[in-house]
């Protein structure tokens, strides 16, 4: 076993030697530098392994010079210390490698020496068991850091170093004062001694004074708000490697000391200190970053926020009033947070070094240039933002669920901060992933390795924590998710990826076959798997444009949806929900939309965090356990689902996300993914609200659904982009489904579930057809199409049937949903909602005609003269999807019978009161409708009329497309004749005021308001060293005054 002193000694010695060797043999200096770091890493690794394997049961205590502790200096290395050392040296090692790849800063000898000293100092801070020794190491660290920062050849580095130095000196002074008082009071400097024996002897006021002195010194180093201005300057100005080491590792060492020292303080004082400083730092960091345009400073804000979170967690961790189980969980969360943050930040700062220019806009296109860059960036950002499957996600979940109920405001705070984090990180992500591909610099080894560490840790972390939290994640689904990611490896050939995906999906269906039971999850599982499979077939044609990540992401979406519906606890639902959200985020981001994916990310994150908050409030995590008193959890959990359904007023992401996402993905997004919201709402209504209770809330949901339907329909009418029109239409239809669910009657649920499936058929068909059309025509702008029926008869026919079904016109399948819904509404007696629903579905005819006319009818534009029918796979899927429309139109019972079974499996619901009797349709108490008769009647009389017409008609000549009675003129071009632009302009005159973009403006106002606040808050950091110093002193005094208890 390695003696920890060796690490320090060797490092110190080699730092000394490098200084000398530098003058004579530069190469040897470098070799020794790197060898030292390797040795340190190995040595600390061995120690840590010793602890892990149980070989070392107790902390190693090293007595330097053989003196016993109170007199001699003492190193105390436990599990945590060893782990911290490993962390420090890995970051240092990665940074060093980065330096070697990129070229060492000049003068390189001094840089290497200072770098070694910095890592050594940080390790020393971690290891030491002696207060004065701690001060010494802090000084070593600080001085090395000043030197390194000052020697960085970047703009503002010198100034930053100076600020750092001034503030750091004040902090050191505080610590030194504290140590002096401590020695005076106890006569010892050894931590163990003080903690063990001597504390009882001194008055609590003095002890508090001492601790607060030390703590406020440390708080400066821990960059709490508002005394962290210097840190931001350092992060912005210094060499990225140095910053990585500082932010990634050195600060964590301070944090460890903070944890160790904090125990001396009376609990309540420390607890509120940690909460106040942690919380404010966290929020301030997250929100101030919104306005930040300099990327490295943005990362700085993020680091500060993470430290704030850690301090907050420390407050709970050290609170002995909490159950030991929760404290254990918080401890685990802290470990995860540190690990996660260190490597992610290292990776991000080193990546920032590879990008020319410091602004956010300079990152444009960097993700497209280099897959390694993209990988590192994506995984780091996902880690930091706490997105599953990364470790950061578990850290957040653990932390939240360990916090007891009376501190639920802390949970809210954490969630709000996490949301704010999503906003700015994904803004950066959006910028980086769009625009022209830009080759980022080649120094990607270190960032890649550190993000690889993050990714590699995922299975382990999941393995440990899902068990620890007792979340039974469905193993089969996890396996399938793993396989899906493997599809990425087939990236060299899209057809192969396609085939592989199909095979995977088939395998998935085979594996999950036992779950196809007649209950709610089985119902939705069938929709997800079969629907996803069918739509997968149609993804083939766009292979040229598809990124290689498309198929893995697609499969992950599908299987995570399967995970969602198969979840037995709310938390596992949440996990899969997040996986689904973020994989779909990637897919949406593949499209052309500038802000689409970002908006989607923000809204989804907001919904998801609200859901997490709601789950936190639930008494039991299991789905299906009784009702919950109070509406709050239900409302919070529903928010996530409402976001996914894009219910007004949460809809503003939908238009662009649907409209701009990858064409091959939109059918899935609209057809199935929005239905996950339905599934979730159904769960909420059945299991949390109770089907027959909370009528007011359900009435409110009903209005939400019907108003969504109404307004989205109206917006669709005036939309001129094919996919965006369909997007609004999709959202509106889901509004009907929500309405049915909100009804809470068997008939309403029948309507909803029927419409869920049916909406999948026709909307997926429409989106698939749209994808095919856009692929052929090259635009999705409606006025530029027209007359395509002459080129795409099959697609026209399919679209026509889908539209008839969408409009709910008998005899096709769409009508059944409408009929059931209205019957349910009238039966329930929601009169006003009924009227609005009717009106909305009438308005739907307007855009239905718009789709058919603008795309297929009217004049064929010249530039589309040589357009061909959609590709074969798309045509195949079209046929596949239109058959059910006809079959269900004649035999709706094929679907209604399974739905009855589903309904009888749910508590509080029973099969819908429909009698089938002799009619092939449905009879309720209210009315009746005979589907088969209508179909037969329609088909029969249509055929008769057609035959009669064909026999008796005049001689019919088929004329060309410009042969119209046009006031005797000869039309010059199809474009002159085609009525495409402003199709409903006259209608807009009548009802245009209804679509005033109020909601968008409100959301925008909120966003800009927060931005303005952040801008105001950011003014605290004047950039002036005097101010910073004054802040530090003032804050320390306030801390002493408030928390010491000395009056």
């Amino acid at each position, binding site marked *: 076993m390695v003696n920890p002193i060796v690490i320090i000694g060797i490092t110190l010695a080699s730092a000394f030697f490098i200084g000398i060797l530098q003058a004579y043999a530069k190469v040897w200096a470098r070799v020794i530098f790197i060898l030292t770091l390797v040795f340190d890493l190995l040595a600390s690794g061995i120690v840590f392994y010793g602890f892990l394997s149980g070989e070392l049961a107790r902390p190693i205590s090293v007595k330097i010079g053989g003196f016993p502790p109170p007199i001699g200096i003492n190193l105390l290395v436990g599990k945590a210390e060893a782990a911290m050392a490993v962390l420090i040296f890995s970051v240092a090692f990665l940074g060093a490698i980065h330096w070697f790849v990129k070229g060492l800063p000049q003068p390189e000898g001094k840089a290497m020496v200072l770098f070694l000293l910095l890592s050594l100092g940080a390790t020393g801070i971690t290891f030491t068991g002696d207060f004065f020794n701690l001060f010494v190491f802090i000084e070593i660290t600080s001085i090395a850091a000043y030197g390194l920062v000052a020697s960085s050849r970047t703009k503002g580095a010198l100034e930053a170093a100076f600020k750092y130095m001034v503030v750091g000196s004040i902090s050191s002074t505080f610590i030194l004062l504290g140590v002096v008082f401590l020695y005076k009071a106890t006569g010892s400097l050894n931590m163990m001694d003080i903690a063990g024996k001597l504390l009882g002897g001194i008055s609590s006021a003095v002890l508090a004074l001492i601790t607060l002195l030390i703590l406020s010194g440390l708080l400066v180093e821990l960059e709490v708000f508002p005394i962290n201005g210097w840190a931001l300057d350092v992060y912005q100005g210094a060499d990225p490697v140095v910053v990585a080491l500082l932010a990634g590792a050195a600060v964590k060492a301070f944090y460890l000391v903070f944890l160790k020292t904090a125990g001396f303080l009376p609990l309540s004082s420390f607890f509120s200190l940690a909460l106040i400083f942690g919380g404010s730092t966290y929020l301030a960091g997250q929100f101030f970053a919104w306005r930040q345009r300099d990327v490295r400073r943005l990362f700085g804000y993020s680091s500060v926020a993470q430290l704030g979170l850690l301090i907050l967690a420390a407050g709970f961790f050290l609170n002995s009033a909490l159950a030991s189980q929760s404290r254990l969980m918080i401890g685990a969360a802290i470990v995860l947070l540190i690990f996660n943050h260190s490597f992610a930040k290292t990776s991000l700062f080193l990546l920032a070094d590879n990008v020319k220019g410091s602004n956010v806009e300079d990152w444009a296109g960097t993700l497209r240039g280099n897959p390694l860059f993209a990988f590192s960036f994506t995984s780091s950002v996902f880690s930091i933002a706490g997105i599953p499957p990364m470790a950061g996600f578990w850290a957040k979940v653990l932390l939240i669920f360990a916090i007891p109920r009376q501190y639920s405001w802390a949970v809210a705070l954490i969630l709000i901060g996490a949301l704010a984090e999503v906003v700015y990180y994904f803004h950066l992500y959006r910028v980086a992933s769009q625009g022209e591909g830009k080759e980022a610099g080649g120094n990607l080894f270190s960032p890649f390795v550190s993000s690889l560490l993050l990714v590699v840790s995922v299975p382990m972390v999941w393995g440990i924590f899902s068990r620890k939290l007792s979340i039974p994640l469905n193993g089969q689904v996890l396996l399938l998710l793993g396989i899906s990611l493997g599809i990425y490896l087939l990236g060299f050939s899209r057809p192969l990826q396609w085939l592989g995906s199909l095979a995977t999906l088939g395998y998935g269906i085979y594996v999950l076959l036992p779950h196809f039971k007649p209950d709610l999850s089985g119902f939705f599982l069938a929709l997800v798997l079969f629907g996803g499979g069918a739509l997968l077939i149609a993804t083939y044609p766009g292979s040229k444009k598809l990124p290689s990540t498309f198929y893995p992401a697609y499969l992950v979406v599908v299987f995570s949806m399967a995970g969602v519906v198969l979840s037995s606890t709310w938390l596992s639902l949440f996990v899969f929900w997040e996986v689904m959200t973020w994989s779909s985020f990637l897919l949406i981001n593949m499209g052309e939309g500038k802000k689409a994916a970002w908006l989607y990310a923000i809204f989804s994150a907001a919904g998801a965090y609200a859901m997490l908050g709601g789950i936190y409030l639930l008494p039991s995590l299991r789905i299906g356990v009784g009702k919950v008193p109070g509406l709050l959890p239900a409302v919070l959990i529903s928010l996530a689902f409402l976001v996914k359904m894009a219910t007004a007023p949460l809809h503003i992401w939908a238009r662009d996300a649907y409209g701009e996402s990858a064409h091959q993905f939109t059918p899935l997004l609209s057809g199935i993914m929005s239905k996950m919201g339905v599934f979730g709402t159904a769960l909420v209504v059945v299991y949390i609200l109770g089907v027959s209770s909370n009528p007011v809330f359900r009435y409110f949901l009903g209005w939400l659904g019907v108003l969504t339907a109404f307004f989205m329909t109206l917006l669709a009418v005036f939309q001129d982009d094919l996919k965006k029109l369909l997007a609004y239409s999709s959202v509106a239809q889901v509004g009907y489904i929500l309405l049915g669910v909100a009804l809470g009657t068997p008939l309403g649920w029948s309507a909803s579930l029927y419409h869920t499936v049916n909406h999948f058929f026709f909307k997926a068909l429409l989106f698939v057809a749209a994808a095919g059309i856009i692929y052929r025509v090259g635009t999705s702008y409606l006025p530029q199409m027209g007359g395509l029926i002459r080129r795409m008869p099959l697609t026209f026919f399919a679209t026509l049937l889908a539209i008839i079904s969408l409009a709910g016109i008998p005899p096709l399948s769409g009508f059944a949903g409408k009929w059931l819904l209205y019957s349910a509404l009238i039966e329930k007696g929601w009169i006003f909602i009924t009227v609005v629903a009717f009106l909305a579905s009438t308005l739907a005819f307007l855009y239905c005609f718009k789709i058919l006319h603008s795309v297929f009818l009217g004049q064929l534009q010249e530039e589309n003269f040589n357009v061909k029918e959609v590709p074969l796979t798309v045509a195949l899927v079209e046929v596949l999807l239109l058959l059910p429309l006809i079959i269900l139109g004649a035999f709706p019972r094929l679907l209604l019978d399974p739905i009855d079974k589903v309904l009888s499996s749910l508590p509080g619901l029973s099969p819908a009161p429909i009698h089938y009797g002799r009619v092939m349709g449905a009879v309720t108490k209210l009315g009746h409708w005979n589907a088969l008769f209508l179909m037969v009647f329609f088909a029969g009389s249509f055929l008769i009329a057609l035959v009669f017409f064909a026999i008796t008609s005049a001689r019919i000549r088929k004329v060309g497309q*410009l042969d119209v009675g046009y006031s005797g003129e000869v039309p010059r071009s199809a474009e002159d004749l085609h009525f495409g632009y402003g199709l409903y302009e006259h209608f807009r005159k009548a009802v245009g005021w209804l679509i005033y973009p109020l909601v968008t403006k409100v959301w925008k106002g909120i966003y800009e308001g927060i931005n303005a606040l952040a801008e105001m808050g950011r003014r605290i950091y004047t950039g002036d060293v005097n101010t910073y110093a004054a802040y530090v002193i003032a804050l320390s005094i306030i801390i002493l005054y408030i928390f010491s208890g000395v009056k």
Partner: protein
Amino acid sequence: MDKKNYFLDEKPEKLTYGGVFRKIDDWARARSLWVVAYGTGCGSIELRPTFTSRFDAERLGMRMVGTPRQADVLIISGYLTVKTLKRVIRVYEQMQSPKYVVALGACPINGGMYYDSYNAINQLDLYLPVDVWITGCMPRPEAILAGFKRLQELIDSGRADGWKKYIENLDWYRENQRKIIKNWKMPNYNW
């Protein structure tokens, strides 16, 4: 511009006129004359009183329609210039058979007061088959009604067959038309 598919470039078929229902057909056609509301010359001002309350052509079963596709009767209401003739030909050919032409006033007959004009045509029947001529400059609505009455009789007795003549002698008509329309920028067959 690729004209392919834009216009039907195909000669009209020769139509037979007869069948079991011929009597009923003629009877019905005579009593249901739909007039394309296309004012070619000054005479169209006379058509408004003809069709409204004062003279009420509707009692003869006549109606104005706004599209040549649904019309049976094309009224050439006065002088025709070369420029108008082009449009008239197109409108006439876009009407569905059986179809009739009524020429109003002196100008279509012999040029009328514009006989020496550089752009008014002198004889309409060189270019289109005229079923009924109504003289006058301009004819009063009473005369127009009388003309329609005459047209009805002609149809009823099966003698209004200008549309057949036009198809049969299309080459001759085309030759005349092309003689004065130098730059034939129309599709050959305007169906």
